[in-house]
């Protein structure tokens, strides 16, 4: 990897790390979901500081250009993260239907009671 790329990765991961900590502290990000992001940014920071590990992994996987190893790892992690988000969305979908049902039934019961009182 070129030194410019290394420096770029280092700066970018540092900025991401600070941004994530900032959003967590400002409570813009739920702590439940922030853990994975803190780990993620720490990891990318580590990777930027110790790029030698990429050379080893690249050699192990017979990948000629270490930068491709970076892309591979990043893509795989993003896949996992996105998939996790979809699972969470699906769970929330189910919960929303449940809550919507409960609210609409409560509304109906309240309406019925009000009408009884009026009579």
């Amino acid at each position, binding site marked *: 990897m070129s030194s410019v790329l290394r420096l770029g990765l280092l700066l970018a991961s540092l900025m991401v790390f600070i941004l994530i900590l900032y959003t967590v502290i400002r409570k813009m990000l739920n702590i439940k979901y922030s853990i994975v992001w803190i780990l993620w940014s720490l990891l990318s920071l580590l990777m930027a500081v110790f790029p030698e590990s990429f050379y080893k992994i690249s050699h192990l996987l017979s990948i000629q250009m270490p930068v491709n190893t970076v892309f591979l790892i990043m893509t795989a992690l993003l896949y996992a993260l996105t998939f996790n988000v979809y699972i969470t969305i699906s769970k929330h979908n*189910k919960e*929303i*239907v*449940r809550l*919507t*049902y409960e*609210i*609409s*039934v409560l*509304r*109906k019961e309240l309406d019925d009671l009000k009408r009884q009182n009026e009579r």
Partner: protein
Amino acid sequence: MMKTLIVIPAYNEQDNIVKLVEDVMSYGYDYLVINDCSRDSTKDLLISNDIVHLDLPINLGIAGVTQVGFKYAKDSDYDCVICIDGDGQHLPEYIKDLVGEIEKGNDYVIGSRFVSEKKPVTPRMLGSRLLCLLIRLKTGKKVTDPTSGMRALGKKVVEDFAESMNFYAEPDALCHLLHKGFEVKEVQVTMKEREAGVSYFHNPLKSLYYMLAVSLSIIFVQ
């Protein structure tokens, strides 16, 4: 006599809903209109006409709305649920035929346009044929109108759907039930052509996506 509930999802149906409900009431069944956060005057009409209804605080879309109906039916201990579209294309006169088949012990009864009638050869019906073929390949069972939204559900199916409905639309729901060994039956009905508005399937891209999603769901998931 089975305790039967007619579930009528309604989204922006101010022109149809009152007449449809009067029609359904004339047959003497319990009914429940579910207003899916309509933006027109559907809600006011439901209130001013004393129509039994649930008023959803957010727009859930057709799958969510029907599931709300099933949850309600389960909690109110109904034996049978009939789904009828709020746009009036499903005619209430056929409800008794559907209920009759549930009473005979079937778990899921579809109001099909093509039990005794021939299926016309149009692009849309080509899609219907393809879905029939897929369901037949997967479950070995023959169906004629998998996309029909006019359905009757017995108690077991209502309880199943009230808990979880992991379907894209009617055809893969049907496939799921056939695969799980529920008794499914089709009865002949006539549907009314839509009077106003544009069909979801008017858009070829949406139709294509629908076919893709339902097919994938039938092949891999259900």
